């Protein structure tokens, strides 16, 4: 095979794989939007109506409990994970740490990153049993935060690493402290950091395994931080397998809500990142 045939074949493979990704994505999103959208748009009230007493059996009422559960679990979890991951990323990228400790911590992060979410779920469940509590919203928050933490740290770490070293030098050069310099570095890396936080949020809102054992599969409105709750992915998981067509259709409506939320988040992250990129050294200038 001569060099040019080789080149052409690889070009074909590269284009085909790119087309496949776009195709699969379009298909998944399209089917969800179509099937879920039909249900949701004929009766948008399902997303804001509390579930009826026999919700899982006859689909009375809506799935507001899961929407609220998702928000009450994922928003606080994202805030916690954001603080932790930003601090860790700053630690890894600054002179707070030595090269060797950074390496070790990076290794642990990779292990965390590669741990299946269900394992976090089981871990937190063990904690719940150990302290004699019941599955509740607060443990869902903890599990999701643990799940998001390595994802967001990795993003933030990469973003900070990509920020020019001279920003640090410039800041130290006028007599800034390490904390002040870290803040400037984060600002310089803000587009990447925001992308990481939003990706963490999106992954968190879409994950079922972590919540399954920790917040539970409640079919009632969440009453407080120590009451059982549930999230949209679990609702979808439970209802998609139901033999009641009405209940199954709610699973599609919930999928629609979830995917629209995730897409909106990604668009928001792009817009925000673009806004801050103007200020980043070497970023886009308008």
């Amino acid at each position: 095979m001569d060099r040019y045939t080789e080149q052409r074949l690889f070009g074909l493979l590269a284009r085909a794989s790119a087309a496949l990704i776009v195709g699969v994505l379009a298909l998944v999103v399209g089917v969800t939007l179509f099937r879920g959208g039909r249900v949701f748009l004929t009766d948008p009230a399902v997303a804001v109506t509390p579930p009826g007493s026999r919700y899982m059996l006859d689909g009375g009422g809506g799935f507001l409990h899961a929407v609220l559960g998702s928000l009450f679990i994922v928003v606080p979890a994202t805030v916690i994970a954001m603080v932790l991951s930003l601090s860790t990323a700053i630690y890894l990228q600054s002179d707070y740490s030595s090269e060797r400790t950074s390496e070790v911590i990076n290794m642990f992060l990779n292990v965390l990153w590669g741990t299946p979410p269900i394992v976090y779920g089981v871990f937190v469940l063990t904690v719940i049993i150990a302290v004699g509590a019941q599955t509740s919203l607060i443990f869902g928050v903890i599990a999701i935060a643990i799940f998001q933490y390595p994802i967001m740290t990795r993003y933030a770490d990469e973003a900070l690493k990509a920020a020019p070293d001279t920003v640090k030098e410039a800041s130290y050069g006028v007599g800034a402290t390490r904390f002040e310099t870290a803040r400037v570095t984060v600002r310089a890396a803000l587009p990447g950091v925001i992308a990481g936080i939003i990706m963490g949020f999106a992954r968190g809102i879409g994950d079922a395994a972590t919540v399954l054992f920790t917040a539970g599969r409640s079919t009632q409105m969440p009453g407080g931080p120590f009451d059982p709750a549930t999230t949209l992915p679990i609702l979808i998981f439970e209802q998609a397998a139901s033999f009641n067509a009405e209940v199954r259709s709610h699973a599609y409506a919930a999928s629609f809500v979830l995917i629209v939320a995730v897409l909106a988040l990604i668009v928001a992250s792009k817009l925000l990142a673009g806004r801050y990129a103007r200020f980043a050294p070497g970023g886009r200038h308008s």
Partner: protein
Amino acid sequence: MSNQPALRTENLEVTYTGNRKVTALDGVSVDFAENALTAIIGPSGCGKSTLLKSLNRLHEIQPNAEIAGEVHFGDQTVYDTDDPLPEIRRRIGYVPQTPTPLPMSIYNNVAYGAKIHGDYSREELDDLVETCLRKVNLWDEVEDRLDDPGAALSTGQIQRLCLARSLAVEPEILLCDEVTSALDPISAEQVEETLESLKEEYTIIMVTHSMDQARRLADDVVFLYLGELVEANDARTFFENPQADRTKEFISGHGASTYLEKSSDESDSETQTDEQVDGSRDRPTAVEQ
């Protein structure tokens, strides 16, 4: 500000202990005169930047740097001190080689240092920003767009912005790391003019690759070779009557090649007022022909 003390290094030794041990500075003792511009020259990798950064302990932000010796700053010492590091770095400012805007507006780029070091009212800050931008001849170019991102300026403007940012914390000494190397000739000339005017007020220590630039700007020259100090002298003696053999070699060899590179932009040679520079500029061009 006129009687500020100069810097003096004493047996400064810097070793990088990364994958392999590299001695970047090997016992350098040198004086830096006050209110003068000292150029540090030498071939690449000879420890110029390390010397510069070790003067305000900036090299400490990279891991694996070990240091011995001392830097005297007036009656103070830079290494053996109870002062917090940021205080030292405020008084001995640093301008990085690559023109780097902080990720904020032009105004805040200049005000940044002042804001972290003291309480200024809005009016005081406005004044300070204007004064500093005027000192670096940038005010007229940016006064209508102070809220634009610093990154939106041209590279040459950004480098002057960096100088203004350093001036805003009222340093006594400015460390400039090859501040014109990333710039086009016209911007470089503007930055040089700025440095020229700044040395009335500040002690400037700059690393440069260009012998031309050292001749044009420097009052004193420090020549490093492989981490060792070869010669430190006033510029006239250094270029006209070098003491060390290695200096002679470096000036003739390196100097000529620098001229050949630069011979294409002869247009700015009229602006040279120093006849010493003009005279030496002709010589290598003639050699080329």
